[in-house]
Protein backbone atom coordinates (compact mmCIF):
# COMPACT_ATOMS: atom_id res chain seq x y z
CA UNK A 1 0.00 0.00 0.00
CA UNK A 2 1.51 3.38 -0.97
CA UNK A 3 0.99 6.68 0.82
CA UNK A 4 -1.64 7.90 -1.68
CA UNK A 5 -3.79 4.81 -1.14
CA UNK A 6 -3.45 5.15 2.64
CA UNK A 7 -4.48 8.82 2.45
CA UNK A 8 -7.47 7.95 0.27
CA UNK A 9 -8.44 5.23 2.67
CA UNK A 10 -7.90 7.61 5.55
CA UNK A 11 -10.01 10.29 3.84
CA UNK A 12 -12.85 7.89 3.14
CA UNK A 13 -12.65 6.61 6.69
CA UNK A 14 -12.82 10.12 8.05
CA UNK A 15 -15.75 10.85 5.76
CA UNK A 16 -17.58 7.77 6.97
CA UNK A 17 -16.82 8.73 10.52
CA UNK A 18 -18.12 12.25 10.01
CA UNK A 19 -21.25 10.92 8.38
CA UNK A 20 -21.79 8.52 11.25
CA UNK A 21 -21.38 11.25 13.82
CA UNK A 22 -23.75 13.49 11.85
CA UNK A 23 -26.38 10.79 11.70
CA UNK A 24 -25.89 10.04 15.36
CA UNK A 25 -26.48 13.69 16.21
CA UNK A 26 -29.90 13.50 14.52
CA UNK A 27 -30.87 10.34 16.33
CA UNK A 28 -33.32 10.87 19.17
CA UNK A 29 -32.84 8.89 22.29
CA UNK A 30 -36.17 7.48 23.40
CA UNK A 31 -36.80 7.36 27.08
CA UNK A 32 -37.20 3.73 28.05
CA UNK A 33 -37.56 3.01 31.75
CA UNK A 34 -39.71 -0.03 32.42
CA UNK A 35 -40.44 -1.74 35.71
CA UNK A 36 -42.37 -4.94 36.29
CA UNK A 37 -42.81 -6.23 39.84
CA UNK A 38 -40.83 -9.49 39.89
CA UNK A 39 -43.15 -11.35 42.27
CA UNK A 40 -46.58 -10.03 41.37
CA UNK A 41 -49.01 -12.52 39.86
CA UNK A 42 -50.40 -10.63 36.88
CA UNK A 43 -52.83 -13.43 36.09
CA UNK A 44 -54.91 -12.18 39.02
CA UNK A 45 -55.82 -9.08 37.04
CA UNK A 46 -59.01 -9.62 35.04
CA UNK A 47 -60.37 -6.13 35.01
CA UNK A 48 -58.59 -2.80 35.17
CA UNK A 49 -59.58 0.86 35.43
CA UNK A 50 -57.67 3.81 34.04
CA UNK A 51 -57.79 6.81 36.33
CA UNK A 52 -57.63 10.38 35.01
CA UNK A 53 -54.09 11.29 33.92
CA UNK A 54 -52.16 14.02 35.59
CA UNK A 55 -51.62 16.66 32.93
CA UNK A 56 -48.20 18.30 33.10
CA UNK A 57 -48.41 19.72 29.59
CA UNK A 58 -49.73 23.01 28.30
CA UNK A 59 -52.63 21.40 26.42
CA UNK A 60 -55.68 21.31 28.68
CA UNK A 61 -57.20 18.33 26.91
CA UNK A 62 -54.06 16.22 26.84
CA UNK A 63 -54.88 14.24 29.95
CA UNK A 64 -58.25 12.97 28.74
CA UNK A 65 -57.04 12.36 25.20
CA UNK A 66 -54.18 10.21 26.40
CA UNK A 67 -56.41 8.44 28.90
CA UNK A 68 -58.85 7.38 26.19
CA UNK A 69 -56.05 6.06 24.02
CA UNK A 70 -54.64 4.11 26.96
CA UNK A 71 -58.08 2.54 27.47
CA UNK A 72 -58.28 1.69 23.80
CA UNK A 73 -54.81 0.16 23.67
CA UNK A 74 -55.47 -2.02 26.71
CA UNK A 75 -58.77 -3.19 25.22
CA UNK A 76 -57.10 -3.85 21.89
CA UNK A 77 -54.65 -6.22 23.58
CA UNK A 78 -57.67 -8.44 24.21
CA UNK A 79 -56.41 -9.63 27.57
CA UNK A 80 -58.11 -7.43 30.13
CA UNK A 81 -61.50 -5.92 30.66
CA UNK A 82 -61.43 -2.15 31.10
CA UNK A 83 -63.97 -0.09 32.99
CA UNK A 84 -65.46 2.65 30.90
CA UNK A 85 -64.00 6.01 31.98
CA UNK A 86 -67.40 7.50 32.82
CA UNK A 87 -67.94 4.71 35.35
CA UNK A 88 -64.59 5.49 36.87
CA UNK A 89 -65.40 9.19 37.02
CA UNK A 90 -68.69 8.45 38.71
CA UNK A 91 -67.01 6.24 41.30
CA UNK A 92 -64.40 8.93 41.96
CA UNK A 93 -67.18 11.45 42.44
CA UNK A 94 -69.04 9.18 44.83
CA UNK A 95 -65.91 8.81 46.94
CA UNK A 96 -65.20 12.53 46.63
CA UNK A 97 -61.73 11.93 45.23
CA UNK A 98 -60.64 15.06 43.43
CA UNK A 99 -56.87 14.76 43.32
CA UNK A 100 -55.60 11.46 41.90
CA UNK A 101 -51.98 12.20 42.80
CA UNK A 102 -52.82 12.21 46.52
CA UNK A 103 -55.12 9.19 46.56
CA UNK A 104 -54.60 6.98 49.61
CA UNK A 105 -54.24 3.20 49.73
CA UNK A 106 -57.56 2.97 51.54
CA UNK A 107 -59.28 4.98 48.84
CA UNK A 108 -57.73 2.80 46.14
CA UNK A 109 -59.01 -0.31 47.89
CA UNK A 110 -62.54 1.09 48.20
CA UNK A 111 -62.49 2.26 44.63
CA UNK A 112 -61.32 -1.15 43.49
CA UNK A 113 -64.19 -2.84 45.30
CA UNK A 114 -66.80 -0.48 43.93
CA UNK A 115 -65.58 -0.89 40.34
CA UNK A 116 -64.76 -4.59 40.65
CA UNK A 117 -61.21 -4.17 39.40
CA UNK A 118 -57.97 -5.78 40.49
CA UNK A 119 -55.67 -2.97 39.35
CA UNK A 120 -55.61 0.66 38.34
CA UNK A 121 -53.56 2.44 35.70
CA UNK A 122 -52.45 5.90 36.74
CA UNK A 123 -50.03 8.23 35.07
CA UNK A 124 -49.09 11.59 33.73
CA UNK A 125 -48.79 13.34 30.42
CA UNK A 126 -45.36 14.88 30.67
CA UNK A 127 -45.13 16.44 27.22
CA UNK A 128 -47.88 17.08 24.71
CA UNK A 129 -46.93 19.81 22.30
CA UNK A 130 -45.81 20.77 18.86
CA UNK A 131 -42.22 21.99 18.68
CA UNK A 132 -40.56 24.07 16.01
CA UNK A 133 -37.53 22.43 14.46
CA UNK A 134 -35.85 23.22 11.19
CA UNK A 135 -38.70 25.35 9.95
CA UNK A 136 -41.36 22.75 10.66
CA UNK A 137 -43.51 21.89 13.66
CA UNK A 138 -43.47 18.39 15.08
CA UNK A 139 -45.59 16.64 17.65
CA UNK A 140 -43.89 15.44 20.80
CA UNK A 141 -45.57 13.29 23.41
CA UNK A 142 -44.09 11.85 26.58
CA UNK A 143 -46.08 9.84 29.12
CA UNK A 144 -45.51 7.93 32.31
CA UNK A 145 -47.84 5.09 33.29
CA UNK A 146 -48.05 2.93 36.40
CA UNK A 147 -50.28 0.06 37.44
CA UNK A 148 -51.33 -0.19 41.08
CA UNK A 149 -52.64 -3.30 42.77
CA UNK A 150 -56.17 -2.38 43.87
CA UNK A 151 -55.95 -4.19 47.21
CA UNK A 152 -52.58 -2.94 48.41
CA UNK A 153 -51.81 0.10 46.28
CA UNK A 154 -48.44 -1.42 45.35
CA UNK A 155 -46.87 -0.31 42.11
CA UNK A 156 -46.69 -3.46 40.00
CA UNK A 157 -45.75 -1.92 36.67
CA UNK A 158 -44.27 1.35 35.54
CA UNK A 159 -43.04 2.75 32.27
CA UNK A 160 -42.15 6.01 30.59
CA UNK A 161 -42.29 6.42 26.85
CA UNK A 162 -42.06 9.23 24.37
CA UNK A 163 -42.70 9.52 20.68
CA UNK A 164 -42.82 12.02 17.88
CA UNK A 165 -40.38 14.83 17.37
CA UNK A 166 -38.41 15.69 14.27
CA UNK A 167 -36.68 12.86 12.52
CA UNK A 168 -33.66 13.14 10.26
CA UNK A 169 -35.49 14.69 7.33
CA UNK A 170 -37.57 16.82 9.62
CA UNK A 171 -34.51 18.47 11.10
CA UNK A 172 -32.94 18.93 7.69
CA UNK A 173 -35.91 19.99 5.62
CA UNK A 174 -38.63 20.83 8.11
CA UNK A 175 -41.31 18.38 6.96
CA UNK A 176 -42.64 14.99 7.91
CA UNK A 177 -43.34 13.92 11.45
CA UNK A 178 -46.39 12.54 13.18
CA UNK A 179 -49.67 14.18 13.99
CA UNK A 180 -50.41 14.70 17.69
CA UNK A 181 -52.60 11.64 17.66
CA UNK A 182 -50.03 9.46 15.90
CA UNK A 183 -47.32 10.47 18.34
CA UNK A 184 -49.66 9.82 21.27
CA UNK A 185 -50.71 6.45 19.93
CA UNK A 186 -47.08 5.41 19.40
CA UNK A 187 -46.09 6.40 22.92
CA UNK A 188 -49.11 4.70 24.49
CA UNK A 189 -48.72 1.59 22.36
CA UNK A 190 -45.06 1.31 23.33
CA UNK A 191 -45.97 1.78 26.99
CA UNK A 192 -48.89 -0.65 27.11
CA UNK A 193 -46.91 -3.27 25.19
CA UNK A 194 -44.56 -3.59 28.12
CA UNK A 195 -47.49 -4.60 30.35
CA UNK A 196 -48.35 -7.57 28.17
CA UNK A 197 -44.89 -8.97 27.47
Amino acid at each position, binding site marked *: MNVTQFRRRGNSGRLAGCLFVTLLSFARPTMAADYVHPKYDFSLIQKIAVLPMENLSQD*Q*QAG*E*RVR*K*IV*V*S*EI*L*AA*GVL*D*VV*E*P*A*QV*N*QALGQQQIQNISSISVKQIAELGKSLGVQAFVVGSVDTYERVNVGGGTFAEVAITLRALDAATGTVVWSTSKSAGGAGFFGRLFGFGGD*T*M*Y*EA*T*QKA*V*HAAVSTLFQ
Partner: protein
Amino acid sequence: MHNTTMTVNRLATTCHVPSSAPRALFRRATCHVPRATCLFACLLAALLAAGFAGASRAQTATTLALLPFENVSGSTESVRIIMPLIEQNLREKGYQVVGPDKIESFLSRNRIRNTGMLSRSQLNNLRGEFGVDFALVGSVDLFYESADNPQWGVSSRIVSTGEAIVLWAESAGRTGGDYTGMLGLGTITSGRDLAQEVVKILFQTLPPPGTRLASPQHQKATGLRVIGSRGSYRSPALDSAPRWRVSVTIFDNASERRGAGRILADVFSTALFHHGRFDVIDPGEVNEALIALGRTSYGGMDIATLRDFKKRTGIDAIIRGTVYRYNEGLKREATTSPDIALDVTMLDAESGRIVWFAVGERSGDDSQIALDFGIIRSMVPLIRRTISEMLDTL
Protein backbone atom coordinates in the same frame (compact mmCIF):
# COMPACT_ATOMS: atom_id res chain seq x y z
CA MET B 1 -95.11 -10.69 10.42
CA HIS B 2 -96.41 -11.96 13.73
CA ASN B 3 -99.94 -10.83 12.88
CA THR B 4 -99.66 -12.49 9.50
CA THR B 5 -98.66 -15.77 11.10
CA MET B 6 -101.53 -15.51 13.54
CA THR B 7 -103.94 -14.93 10.67
CA VAL B 8 -102.71 -18.03 8.88
CA ASN B 9 -102.85 -20.11 12.05
CA ARG B 10 -106.36 -18.95 12.84
CA LEU B 11 -107.49 -20.04 9.40
CA ALA B 12 -105.70 -23.35 9.73
CA THR B 13 -107.47 -24.20 12.98
CA THR B 14 -110.87 -23.79 11.37
CA CYS B 15 -110.03 -26.68 9.08
CA HIS B 16 -109.89 -29.78 11.19
CA VAL B 17 -110.02 -33.53 10.71
CA PRO B 18 -112.30 -35.59 12.99
CA SER B 19 -110.29 -38.23 14.84
CA SER B 20 -112.67 -41.02 13.88
CA ALA B 21 -112.60 -40.26 10.19
CA PRO B 22 -111.39 -42.98 7.81
CA ARG B 23 -107.79 -42.74 6.57
CA ALA B 24 -108.79 -41.43 3.18
CA LEU B 25 -110.21 -38.29 4.79
CA PHE B 26 -106.76 -37.23 6.08
CA ARG B 27 -105.99 -36.21 2.57
CA ARG B 28 -108.71 -33.63 2.57
CA ALA B 29 -109.75 -31.95 5.77
CA THR B 30 -113.35 -30.83 6.32
CA CYS B 31 -113.25 -27.10 6.21
CA HIS B 32 -115.91 -24.76 7.40
CA VAL B 33 -114.36 -21.84 5.58
CA PRO B 34 -115.19 -21.49 1.88
CA ARG B 35 -112.31 -22.41 -0.41
CA ALA B 36 -112.24 -19.02 -2.10
CA THR B 37 -111.86 -17.30 1.23
CA CYS B 38 -109.08 -19.71 2.18
CA LEU B 39 -107.24 -19.02 -1.03
CA PHE B 40 -107.66 -15.29 -0.67
CA ALA B 41 -106.45 -15.34 2.90
CA CYS B 42 -103.43 -17.45 1.98
CA LEU B 43 -102.55 -15.15 -0.87
CA LEU B 44 -102.95 -12.13 1.34
CA ALA B 45 -100.84 -13.71 4.02
CA ALA B 46 -98.15 -14.57 1.51
CA LEU B 47 -98.10 -11.04 0.14
CA LEU B 48 -97.99 -9.56 3.62
CA ALA B 49 -95.20 -11.88 4.66
CA ALA B 50 -93.17 -11.06 1.59
CA GLY B 51 -93.72 -7.38 1.89
CA PHE B 52 -93.59 -6.84 5.60
CA ALA B 53 -90.04 -8.00 6.15
CA GLY B 54 -88.78 -5.44 3.74
CA ALA B 55 -91.28 -2.81 4.63
CA SER B 56 -90.61 -2.80 8.36
CA ARG B 57 -87.99 -0.14 7.81
CA ALA B 58 -88.70 0.87 4.23
CA GLN B 59 -91.49 3.31 3.60
CA THR B 60 -92.54 5.37 0.68
CA ALA B 61 -92.40 9.11 1.03
CA THR B 62 -94.36 11.65 -0.95
CA THR B 63 -95.18 14.24 1.70
CA LEU B 64 -92.61 15.74 4.01
CA ALA B 65 -92.91 18.08 6.95
CA LEU B 66 -90.07 20.52 6.48
CA LEU B 67 -88.87 21.90 9.77
CA PRO B 68 -86.79 25.07 9.92
CA PHE B 69 -83.13 24.10 9.93
CA GLU B 70 -81.36 24.73 13.18
CA ASN B 71 -78.76 27.46 12.97
CA VAL B 72 -75.37 26.37 14.29
CA SER B 73 -73.46 28.56 11.88
CA GLY B 74 -73.34 31.64 14.03
CA SER B 75 -74.75 33.76 11.22
CA THR B 76 -78.25 35.16 11.69
CA GLU B 77 -78.86 35.29 7.92
CA SER B 78 -78.06 31.71 7.04
CA VAL B 79 -81.43 30.06 7.72
CA ARG B 80 -83.33 32.90 6.10
CA ILE B 81 -81.29 32.45 2.90
CA ILE B 82 -81.27 28.69 2.67
CA MET B 83 -84.75 27.56 3.77
CA PRO B 84 -86.62 28.89 0.69
CA LEU B 85 -84.03 27.18 -1.53
CA ILE B 86 -84.51 23.89 0.31
CA GLU B 87 -88.29 24.06 0.03
CA GLN B 88 -88.07 24.96 -3.64
CA ASN B 89 -85.67 22.11 -4.34
CA LEU B 90 -87.93 19.59 -2.62
CA ARG B 91 -90.97 20.74 -4.57
CA GLU B 92 -89.03 20.60 -7.82
CA LYS B 93 -88.18 16.99 -7.00
CA GLY B 94 -91.90 16.30 -6.73
CA TYR B 95 -92.35 16.15 -2.98
CA GLN B 96 -95.38 17.65 -1.31
CA VAL B 97 -94.05 19.84 1.44
CA VAL B 98 -95.68 21.03 4.62
CA GLY B 99 -93.54 24.13 4.85
CA PRO B 100 -91.95 25.87 7.82
CA ASP B 101 -94.60 28.59 7.78
CA LYS B 102 -97.29 26.02 8.57
CA ILE B 103 -95.07 24.22 11.09
CA GLU B 104 -94.28 27.42 13.03
CA SER B 105 -97.41 27.42 15.20
CA PHE B 106 -96.98 23.71 15.92
CA LEU B 107 -93.45 24.40 17.11
CA SER B 108 -94.47 27.18 19.45
CA ARG B 109 -97.46 25.24 20.86
CA ASN B 110 -95.26 22.24 21.55
CA ARG B 111 -92.40 24.44 22.79
CA ILE B 112 -89.93 22.91 20.40
CA ARG B 113 -86.74 24.94 20.27
CA ASN B 114 -84.27 22.45 18.77
CA THR B 115 -85.87 22.11 15.37
CA GLY B 116 -82.90 20.11 14.11
CA MET B 117 -83.44 17.31 16.61
CA LEU B 118 -86.92 16.03 17.38
CA SER B 119 -87.77 13.27 19.82
CA ARG B 120 -90.11 10.42 19.00
CA SER B 121 -92.95 11.96 20.97
CA GLN B 122 -92.55 15.28 19.18
CA LEU B 123 -92.46 13.48 15.84
CA ASN B 124 -95.59 11.54 16.80
CA ASN B 125 -97.33 14.82 17.58
CA LEU B 126 -96.20 16.19 14.22
CA ARG B 127 -97.67 13.16 12.55
CA GLY B 128 -100.92 13.55 14.41
CA GLU B 129 -101.27 17.21 13.51
CA PHE B 130 -100.25 17.14 9.87
CA GLY B 131 -100.75 13.50 8.92
CA VAL B 132 -97.18 13.17 7.65
CA ASP B 133 -95.10 10.03 7.93
CA PHE B 134 -91.78 11.82 7.44
CA ALA B 135 -90.07 14.93 8.67
CA LEU B 136 -87.07 16.58 7.12
CA VAL B 137 -84.86 18.15 9.74
CA GLY B 138 -81.43 19.67 9.46
CA SER B 139 -78.92 22.24 10.51
CA VAL B 140 -76.86 24.97 8.94
CA ASP B 141 -73.39 24.12 10.17
CA LEU B 142 -71.42 26.82 8.40
CA PHE B 143 -72.18 30.06 6.65
CA TYR B 144 -69.42 32.49 5.91
CA GLU B 145 -70.32 35.43 3.74
CA SER B 146 -67.26 36.74 2.02
CA ALA B 147 -66.82 38.85 -1.07
CA ASP B 148 -64.23 36.50 -2.52
CA ASN B 149 -64.84 33.07 -0.98
CA PRO B 150 -68.17 32.37 0.73
CA GLN B 151 -68.71 29.05 2.50
CA TRP B 152 -71.71 26.89 3.35
CA GLY B 153 -72.14 23.67 5.29
CA VAL B 154 -75.50 21.94 5.87
CA SER B 155 -76.71 18.60 7.20
CA SER B 156 -80.14 17.09 6.76
CA ARG B 157 -82.11 13.94 7.63
CA ILE B 158 -85.47 12.43 6.84
CA VAL B 159 -86.85 10.86 9.98
CA SER B 160 -89.91 8.67 10.30
CA THR B 161 -92.51 10.36 12.47
CA GLY B 162 -93.46 6.96 13.91
CA GLU B 163 -90.20 5.51 15.19
CA ALA B 164 -87.68 8.37 14.84
CA ILE B 165 -85.54 6.18 12.60
CA VAL B 166 -83.32 8.01 10.14
CA LEU B 167 -84.36 6.97 6.62
CA TRP B 168 -82.19 9.33 4.64
CA ALA B 169 -79.31 11.59 5.61
CA GLU B 170 -76.80 13.76 3.90
CA SER B 171 -74.30 16.51 4.61
CA ALA B 172 -72.86 18.95 2.12
CA GLY B 173 -70.48 21.86 2.16
CA ARG B 174 -68.69 23.99 -0.36
CA THR B 175 -66.63 27.12 -0.66
CA GLY B 176 -66.77 29.59 -3.50
CA GLY B 177 -63.21 28.56 -4.32
CA ASP B 178 -64.29 24.96 -4.97
CA TYR B 179 -65.75 26.18 -8.26
CA THR B 180 -62.62 27.93 -9.42
CA GLY B 181 -61.53 26.51 -12.74
CA MET B 182 -58.88 27.30 -15.28
CA LEU B 183 -57.25 30.71 -15.12
CA GLY B 184 -59.00 31.37 -11.83
CA LEU B 185 -62.42 31.68 -13.46
CA GLY B 186 -65.68 30.30 -12.15
CA THR B 187 -65.32 31.19 -8.47
CA ILE B 188 -68.70 31.71 -6.84
CA THR B 189 -68.56 34.96 -4.92
CA SER B 190 -72.19 35.24 -3.86
CA GLY B 191 -73.38 33.47 -0.73
CA ARG B 192 -76.83 32.98 -2.20
CA ASP B 193 -75.53 31.47 -5.44
CA LEU B 194 -73.32 29.14 -3.47
CA ALA B 195 -76.30 28.17 -1.30
CA GLN B 196 -78.17 27.03 -4.41
CA GLU B 197 -75.28 24.79 -5.38
CA VAL B 198 -74.94 23.37 -1.89
CA VAL B 199 -78.66 22.57 -1.69
CA LYS B 200 -78.45 20.76 -5.04
CA ILE B 201 -75.54 18.69 -3.75
CA LEU B 202 -77.33 18.03 -0.46
CA PHE B 203 -80.35 16.53 -2.18
CA GLN B 204 -78.47 14.65 -4.90
CA THR B 205 -78.95 11.36 -3.08
CA LEU B 206 -82.57 12.06 -2.08
CA PRO B 207 -84.74 9.40 -3.73
CA PRO B 208 -87.67 10.56 -5.88
CA PRO B 209 -91.06 10.73 -4.17
CA GLY B 210 -92.81 7.38 -3.93
CA THR B 211 -89.53 5.51 -3.62
CA ARG B 212 -89.01 3.33 -0.60
CA LEU B 213 -86.86 4.98 2.02
CA ALA B 214 -84.78 2.52 3.99
CA SER B 215 -81.53 2.28 5.86
CA PRO B 216 -78.77 1.13 3.52
CA GLN B 217 -77.39 -2.36 4.07
CA HIS B 218 -73.79 -2.54 5.13
CA GLN B 219 -71.50 -4.30 2.68
CA LYS B 220 -69.18 -6.40 4.78
CA ALA B 221 -65.59 -6.26 3.58
CA THR B 222 -64.53 -9.61 2.17
CA GLY B 223 -60.84 -8.91 2.39
CA LEU B 224 -58.72 -7.74 5.27
CA ARG B 225 -60.36 -5.18 7.48
CA VAL B 226 -58.82 -1.80 6.82
CA ILE B 227 -57.63 -0.34 10.05
CA GLY B 228 -57.59 3.34 9.19
CA SER B 229 -56.22 4.55 12.47
CA ARG B 230 -53.94 2.54 14.68
CA GLY B 231 -55.03 2.73 18.26
CA SER B 232 -58.68 2.26 17.44
CA TYR B 233 -60.47 -0.57 19.18
CA ARG B 234 -63.28 -2.75 17.94
CA SER B 235 -64.87 -5.36 20.14
CA PRO B 236 -65.18 -8.84 18.61
CA ALA B 237 -68.74 -8.83 19.98
CA LEU B 238 -69.73 -6.56 17.10
CA ASP B 239 -69.17 -9.42 14.65
CA SER B 240 -72.09 -11.34 16.08
CA ALA B 241 -74.21 -8.38 17.14
CA PRO B 242 -77.61 -8.11 15.42
CA ARG B 243 -78.62 -4.96 13.60
CA TRP B 244 -78.54 -2.57 16.53
CA ARG B 245 -80.47 0.62 17.01
CA VAL B 246 -77.78 3.22 17.54
CA SER B 247 -77.85 6.90 18.23
CA VAL B 248 -75.28 9.65 18.43
CA THR B 249 -75.19 12.12 21.30
CA ILE B 250 -74.03 15.69 21.00
CA PHE B 251 -70.24 15.60 21.18
CA ASP B 252 -68.39 17.13 24.09
CA ASN B 253 -66.88 20.32 22.73
CA ALA B 254 -63.30 21.00 23.74
CA SER B 255 -62.69 23.26 20.75
CA GLU B 256 -63.00 27.00 20.41
CA ARG B 257 -65.89 26.80 17.97
CA ARG B 258 -69.25 27.15 19.61
CA GLY B 259 -71.67 24.49 18.41
CA ALA B 260 -68.96 22.14 17.18
CA GLY B 261 -70.30 19.32 19.32
CA ARG B 262 -73.72 19.67 17.79
CA ILE B 263 -72.37 19.79 14.24
CA LEU B 264 -70.35 16.64 14.83
CA ALA B 265 -73.42 14.82 16.10
CA ASP B 266 -75.32 15.72 12.91
CA VAL B 267 -72.55 14.87 10.47
CA PHE B 268 -71.65 11.69 12.34
CA SER B 269 -75.30 10.57 12.21
CA THR B 270 -75.22 11.12 8.45
CA ALA B 271 -72.02 9.14 8.02
CA LEU B 272 -73.29 6.36 10.30
CA PHE B 273 -76.48 6.14 8.27
CA HIS B 274 -74.49 5.72 5.06
CA HIS B 275 -72.29 3.13 6.73
CA GLY B 276 -75.40 0.96 6.89
CA ARG B 277 -74.29 -1.27 9.73
CA PHE B 278 -76.93 -0.03 12.19
CA ASP B 279 -80.35 1.54 12.32
CA VAL B 280 -79.70 5.15 13.24
CA ILE B 281 -82.12 6.76 15.65
CA ASP B 282 -82.40 10.51 15.47
CA PRO B 283 -80.25 12.35 18.04
CA GLY B 284 -83.38 14.18 19.14
CA GLU B 285 -84.64 11.01 20.80
CA VAL B 286 -81.41 10.77 22.78
CA ASN B 287 -81.65 14.39 23.78
CA GLU B 288 -85.17 14.12 25.07
CA ALA B 289 -84.48 10.87 26.91
CA LEU B 290 -81.52 12.40 28.72
CA ILE B 291 -83.58 15.44 29.69
CA ALA B 292 -86.41 13.23 30.89
CA LEU B 293 -83.99 11.14 32.94
CA GLY B 294 -82.38 14.25 34.35
CA ARG B 295 -78.97 13.19 33.09
CA THR B 296 -76.37 14.56 30.74
CA SER B 297 -74.03 12.90 28.30
CA TYR B 298 -71.30 15.39 29.09
CA GLY B 299 -68.25 13.60 30.48
CA GLY B 300 -69.69 10.17 29.82
CA MET B 301 -72.70 8.06 30.69
CA ASP B 302 -72.55 5.63 33.59
CA ILE B 303 -74.10 2.20 33.34
CA ALA B 304 -77.23 3.09 35.29
CA THR B 305 -77.96 5.95 32.90
CA LEU B 306 -77.29 3.74 29.90
CA ARG B 307 -79.70 1.07 31.11
CA ASP B 308 -82.42 3.58 31.95
CA PHE B 309 -81.82 5.07 28.57
CA LYS B 310 -82.17 1.73 26.80
CA LYS B 311 -85.35 0.94 28.68
CA ARG B 312 -86.84 4.25 27.67
CA THR B 313 -85.77 4.41 24.02
CA GLY B 314 -84.97 0.86 22.93
CA ILE B 315 -81.59 2.08 21.69
CA ASP B 316 -78.94 -0.66 21.86
CA ALA B 317 -75.80 1.44 21.66
CA ILE B 318 -74.78 5.03 22.07
CA ILE B 319 -72.01 6.82 20.22
CA ARG B 320 -70.46 9.72 22.00
CA GLY B 321 -67.35 11.69 21.34
CA THR B 322 -65.21 14.71 21.97
CA VAL B 323 -64.14 17.28 19.42
CA TYR B 324 -60.79 18.79 20.31
CA ARG B 325 -60.03 20.92 17.33
CA TYR B 326 -62.56 22.44 14.95
CA ASN B 327 -60.97 25.00 12.69
CA GLU B 328 -63.04 26.09 9.70
CA GLY B 329 -60.09 27.94 8.19
CA LEU B 330 -61.88 31.27 8.32
CA LYS B 331 -59.42 33.24 10.40
CA ARG B 332 -57.39 35.60 8.27
CA GLU B 333 -54.29 35.43 10.41
CA ALA B 334 -54.18 31.64 10.54
CA THR B 335 -54.10 28.90 7.93
CA THR B 336 -57.02 28.82 5.53
CA SER B 337 -57.12 25.05 5.52
CA PRO B 338 -59.82 23.58 7.78
CA ASP B 339 -58.81 20.96 10.30
CA ILE B 340 -60.48 18.70 12.80
CA ALA B 341 -59.49 16.42 15.66
CA LEU B 342 -61.96 14.18 17.49
CA ASP B 343 -62.45 10.82 19.08
CA VAL B 344 -65.55 8.64 19.43
CA THR B 345 -66.61 5.83 21.71
CA MET B 346 -69.48 3.42 21.18
CA LEU B 347 -71.04 1.97 24.32
CA ASP B 348 -73.26 -1.07 24.62
CA ALA B 349 -76.29 0.36 26.42
CA GLU B 350 -76.93 -2.91 28.28
CA SER B 351 -73.48 -3.76 29.56
CA GLY B 352 -71.90 -0.31 29.49
CA ARG B 353 -68.88 -1.79 27.73
CA ILE B 354 -66.83 0.02 25.13
CA VAL B 355 -67.41 -1.78 21.84
CA TRP B 356 -65.65 0.68 19.54
CA PHE B 357 -63.21 3.54 19.88
CA ALA B 358 -61.60 5.56 17.15
CA VAL B 359 -59.69 8.77 16.68
CA GLY B 360 -59.82 11.10 13.71
CA GLU B 361 -57.45 13.92 12.93
CA ARG B 362 -57.26 15.58 9.57
CA SER B 363 -56.67 18.87 7.80
CA GLY B 364 -57.86 19.92 4.39
CA ASP B 365 -54.30 19.78 3.04
CA ASP B 366 -53.85 16.12 3.93
CA SER B 367 -55.57 14.97 0.77
CA GLN B 368 -53.55 17.26 -1.47
CA ILE B 369 -52.13 15.39 -4.45
CA ALA B 370 -50.35 18.01 -6.52
CA LEU B 371 -50.53 21.78 -6.53
CA ASP B 372 -54.02 22.48 -5.15
CA PHE B 373 -55.60 19.34 -6.50
CA GLY B 374 -57.31 17.23 -3.88
CA ILE B 375 -57.39 19.85 -1.13
CA ILE B 376 -60.57 19.85 0.92
CA ARG B 377 -61.43 23.48 1.44
CA SER B 378 -64.75 23.19 3.22
CA MET B 379 -65.34 21.99 6.75
CA VAL B 380 -68.30 19.67 6.31
CA PRO B 381 -66.68 17.54 3.57
CA LEU B 382 -63.54 17.38 5.71
CA ILE B 383 -65.55 16.11 8.67
CA ARG B 384 -67.26 13.54 6.45
CA ARG B 385 -63.95 12.31 5.12
CA THR B 386 -62.47 12.05 8.60
CA ILE B 387 -65.47 10.22 10.00
CA SER B 388 -65.61 7.86 7.02
CA GLU B 389 -62.03 6.82 7.73
CA MET B 390 -62.91 6.26 11.36
CA LEU B 391 -65.97 4.20 10.41
CA ASP B 392 -63.72 1.97 8.28
CA THR B 393 -62.48 0.57 11.59
CA LEU B 394 -66.03 -0.27 12.75
